[in-house]
């Protein structure tokens, strides 16, 4: 693998130069998200959060309709109900804002793209291979992530990697390759090692230590989106009992 010339990242109508840091704000349209549960489940509160995030300088707005953690099933129809009108409302209010949607299923993905979403944040690592086709069809971006062997909305049980970096690289580059073949614009592919996702805190720290490796320079890196525990560990305020959950 040779060095890859850094290239701009294109999301929606915007183009960002290589190496530019972008801030993604998250608005969860879920009653029970793992992060600030219930804060933004109501449309009014969610739109208020969008206004605040934009005012604070967010480059990307990420909308999620399903919590990552296990729980009662959220049907495709319910996910669409939670997310699509909201995306349309945000698009109407902010014609140029980069809107990302956290989804792993092609049906909601298609619906949000029709409503104006620019980026499909496939947190569950290509579970639905047709997500890439949807991204290609709408010239949307696609996040290629790593979650080990997990299926959507399950937790890792004692995650173990012979070489976590190699595992991540194989997976995300494989997904990126698949996306390219499906016709996704290479300038719209984002790599997500997915810290703390299907990994324990040690694995996440190792990935962070090696984020400068060439593999992560070939595409734009999206990091720390889920890394609340890892960031806390770096700051030194992660309770040890929480740090070892992946080892229980």
């Amino acid at each position: 693998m040779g060095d890859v010339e850094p290239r701009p990242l294109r999301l929606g109508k915007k183009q960002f130069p290589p190496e530019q840091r972008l801030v993604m704000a998250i608005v969860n349209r879920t009653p029970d998200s793992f992060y600030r549960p219930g804060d933004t489940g109501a449309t009014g509160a969610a739109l208020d959060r969008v206004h605040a995030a934009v005012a604070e300088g967010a480059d990307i707005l990420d909308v999620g309709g399903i919590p990552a953690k296990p729980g009662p099933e959220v049907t495709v129809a319910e996910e669409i109900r939670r997310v699509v009108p909201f995306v349309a409302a945000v698009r109407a209010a902010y014609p140029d804002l980069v809107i990302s949607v956290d989804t792993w299923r092609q049906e909601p993905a298609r619906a949000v793209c029709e409503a104006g979403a620019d980026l499909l944040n496939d947190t569950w690592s290509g579970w639905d291979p047709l997500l890439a086709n949807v991204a290609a069809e709408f010239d949307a971006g696609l996040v290629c992530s790593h979650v080990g062997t997990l299926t959507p909305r399950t937790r890792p049980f004692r995650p173990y990697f012979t070489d976590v970096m190699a595992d991540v690289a194989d997976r995300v580059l494989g997904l990126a390759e698949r996306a390219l073949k499906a016709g996704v614009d290479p300038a719209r592919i984002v790599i997500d090692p997915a810290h703390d996702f299907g990994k324990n805190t040690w694995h996440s720290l190792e990935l962070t230590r090696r984020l400068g490796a060439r593999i992560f320079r070939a595409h734009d890196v999206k990091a720390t989106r889920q890394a609340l525990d890892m960031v806390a560990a770096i700051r030194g305020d992660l309770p040890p009992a929480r740090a070892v959950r992946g080892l229980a």
Partner: protein
Amino acid sequence: MIVAAALCPSPPLLATELTGRADILPDLRTACTAAIAHLLAATPDVIAVVGAAQETATWNPDDRLDLSGYAPLLSSAPPRAPYPPAPAPTTAAFPRSPVPAPADIEGLQAMPPRAAAAPTASAVPHRPATRPRGKPGLPLALGIGALLLDEASYTGPRILQAVDESASSADCLRLGRDLAAAAPRIALLAVGDGSARRGPAAPGYLDERAIPFDDAVQQAVRDGDMAALAGIDPDLARDLMATGRAAWQVLAGAFAGASPPTEITYAADPFGVAYLVATLT
């Protein structure tokens, strides 16, 4: 014949290399230490460690758990060629200050690996028993058992017996009978866990059957009721992510119908996984 036996769970966090200075579950560790002491007090000819794995096999007694699969900084192997480590994170994601190595983190300091590090999860490809002596790579349950023996400074003969995690109850019982005949005085350490689906925060989320299942296992152990252990439904255990089933049934086979006196010294689910420590004689 079996002169002593014990049950211990197999969470990786029992390896202090992975938890460092943080004192994680001291009561569990104390109970495990006492359980090993119980085995040693019987002055066995050999200690047999039994734990579930992808297939039934006898591992080299010198093998240990590969802790680097849980904490990469414990690895002594060079990284795979195409992905060299970055000396310092210089990407846009973390531009302001170097990210500390985990060893620098207060309260979460990893220690260097011990001379012979130790087991692995069942998702890891199995390595045959013919591999070179003393290498890491044991299945998790066997590795935790080996680690507990190491921590007790036990250097006597040991048998590391993996049992197929999907083995039938009959096969487990037969394996137990064979193990019991392996030496005149044999101590048996059965390593494995109850359900990992004991609540919404558990690794396997909530399955309403988990708590009754674990209660029944605990009652069987408390009563020394080997027939009840032998009767655990393998399919239910698999559904409930109870990794200890096969090892418990090997234990039941080793006691060959006897009803040993027992003592449960730890039974809790601090992370949503049922841990059980018990001694049997």
